[in-house]
């Protein structure tokens, strides 16, 4: 059945993706554009008089920061999953007294404006002496993802059939064992979703980085953009070039992760 030609679906997929990514293309286009062509009427669809000026600036100055971004991104993923998966399980399956209140607090927590959160962290970090550290940034970035993670895990884990959990109990498994051996494996989709967004948020975060990590030696790549935002002038091709350079490794990582996940699902089926 699946052998039926699916090329037209691929074609539709390509068109949709192209449409979706058009603004991203435009960013790439601007990153190659000379200052004098940036506001040309009508605009060039392609960098006709392309310049590598923006990229030259970026490659000289920005590459070391990619490592920091990667470290912060992955650290945020780990911290987020470790904190939110057990909580999601508890809220979805163990029905703790006061769980509703906690979900509620999690919702409200997300409404605190990032700037206010950053101000709070600034005061805390200053007294702890951990401004300008990757670890501090990981903890701060995780505050965007943890409430999300708990709610997502709760929603997904509540769809796990009660029979499955009960079966494990009947086999004599304790709560911990059930969580680790039964619930986590079937929650792979939730884990992937939460990890993806934790990574994306950490990767593109700006507010926390600039408040908590500005001027340190371990700046993430997003702050690199500031090198091109002077007090009076902005160098837009370099800003866009930074974003392009910053998004390439992360894009590759996303595609590989998706591949791995699909492969994992299939492998599971084979084992079955």
């Amino acid at each position, binding site marked *: 059945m699946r052998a039926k030609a699916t090329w037209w679906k691929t074609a539709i997929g390509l068109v949709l993706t192209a449409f979706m990514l058009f603004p991203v293309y435009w960013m790439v286009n601007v990153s190659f554009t000379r200052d*004098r062509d940036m506001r040309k009427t009508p605009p060039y669809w392609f960098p006709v008089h392309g310049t590598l000026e923006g990229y030259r600036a970026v490659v000289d100055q920005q590459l070391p920061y990619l490592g920091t971004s990667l470290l912060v991104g992955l650290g945020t993923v780990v911290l987020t999953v470790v904190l939110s998966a057990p909580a999601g399980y508890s809220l979805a399956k163990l029905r703790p007294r006061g769980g509703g209140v906690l979900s509620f607090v999690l919702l409200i927590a997300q409404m605190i404006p990032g700037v206010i959160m950053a*101000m709070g962290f600034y005061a805390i970090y200053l007294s702890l002496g951990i401004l*300008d550290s990757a670890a*501090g940034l990981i*903890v701060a970035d995780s505050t965007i993802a943890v409430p999300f993670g708990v709610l997502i895990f709760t929603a997904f884990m509540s769809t796990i059939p009660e029979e499955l959990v009960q079966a494990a109990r009947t086999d004599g498994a*304790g709560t*911990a064992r059930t969580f*680790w051996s039964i619930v986590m494996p079937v929650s792979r989709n939730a884990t992937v979703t939460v990890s993806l967004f934790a990574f994306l948020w950490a990767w593109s975060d700006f507010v926390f980085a600039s408040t908590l990590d500005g001027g340190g030696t371990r700046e993430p790549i997003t702050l690199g953009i500031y090198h091109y935002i002077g007090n009076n002038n902005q*160098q*837009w091709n370099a800003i866009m070039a930074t974003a392009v350079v910053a998004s390439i490794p992360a894009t590759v990582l996303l595609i590989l992760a998706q591949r791995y996940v699909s492969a994992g699902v299939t492998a599971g089926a084979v084992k079955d």
Partner: protein
Amino acid sequence: MNVVTRRRRVLGASLVAVALAGGLVACSSSSGGDSGSEASGPYTIWDPYPQFDNSSDWVQLLDKCGSAAGVTVKRTAYDTTDLTNKALLAAQQNNSPDVLIVDNPVISTLADAGVLTTTGDTKVDTSAVEPNLLAAGQIGGKTYGIPIGANTLALYYNKSILRAAGVDATTVKDWASLTAALAKATAAGKKGITFSAIGTEEGSFQFLPWFWGAGANLTKLDSAQGVAALSLWTDWLRKGYAPNSVINNTQTTSWQEFATGQYAFAENGTWQLANAKKTGFDYGIIPIPGQNGGTAPAPTGGEFVTVPVQKHTARYSTSEKLVACLTSSDNSYTTDTTLSYIAPTDPVQAKQVAATPELRVWVDAVHAAKGRTSDNLGTKYPKISEPMWTAVQAALSGSKAPQAALSAAQSTAASATK
């Protein structure tokens, strides 16, 4: 499934999670700028020049001044719009830098917050600075810093477009002749003028030369002169002499428009001189004309070097040495050349003009310029500026007539500054 009850494991895992979070916190290295602890130790400097990296002249100058004063310097650059809040937050947590370089209209806010020392406290010598420039850092008879350099606005023009349109730039002396020149350029198939009327302080900065050039006063936004200035802009938009995009233009965007070579004029700042040379066409610069001739007073731009309040006042003497070094004649010349600014003192200005004669027009413009927070407006200025830029936006986007927009702005400003 080989299931064994091991609840402890979960508790263990939870504890590990907490410990991990705590451990991450605890074992990370600290490099926060804790500057107030004692008189020795590194001196922190914050500036709004993130475009300069460690190899730049500016950062090397900071290091040089540090070693001359016998201390190490730790410099951090922030985005200029971010720096005000950063400075307030740091002051709240007693973590102010030793030297803070900050955009001049922010001085009154920071001084009002008690963040800055006066030059009297720190013995910083401001005697050589031109009074109209220093005024932007003076509130209630006290001076809170010293300008590192000054910039202001003027009109850049595209020589070939004016030639093709048959306009002689030297005849543009007042609003009428400017508007006539725009009409000719537009008739010749080119675009007239671009400026920045965005809904932020940048918009007010760009509007002020016309507002003041009409003889209006910030304490009365809806005067006939104020309305005349706003009507001038509104008419340009309506007649197509200025593009509609000015409503959302930052000064950089506006410059990019001029740099396409499609515009006859652009209102922009001293700092664009370096970029002007890269456009690939011949350009000239004239001062912004007043309504009935003469040079309109443009607002002064540029940053001040300030010394924030410290718990340990013993640090001030070294900070003063740093400030004196940064603003000394020789260093001022280098810095203002890098920033494309005009120096704040006569002798250095003369040196700049001798080296680059085309700076003459900018030196004149800076002499005619006026601080936004001057006239003892201080922290009243921001409360007037916001309604003003809102009125400009309302008139240009056509949602209100200039008179109505400015009347509304005046009543907002009046109740805010009461």
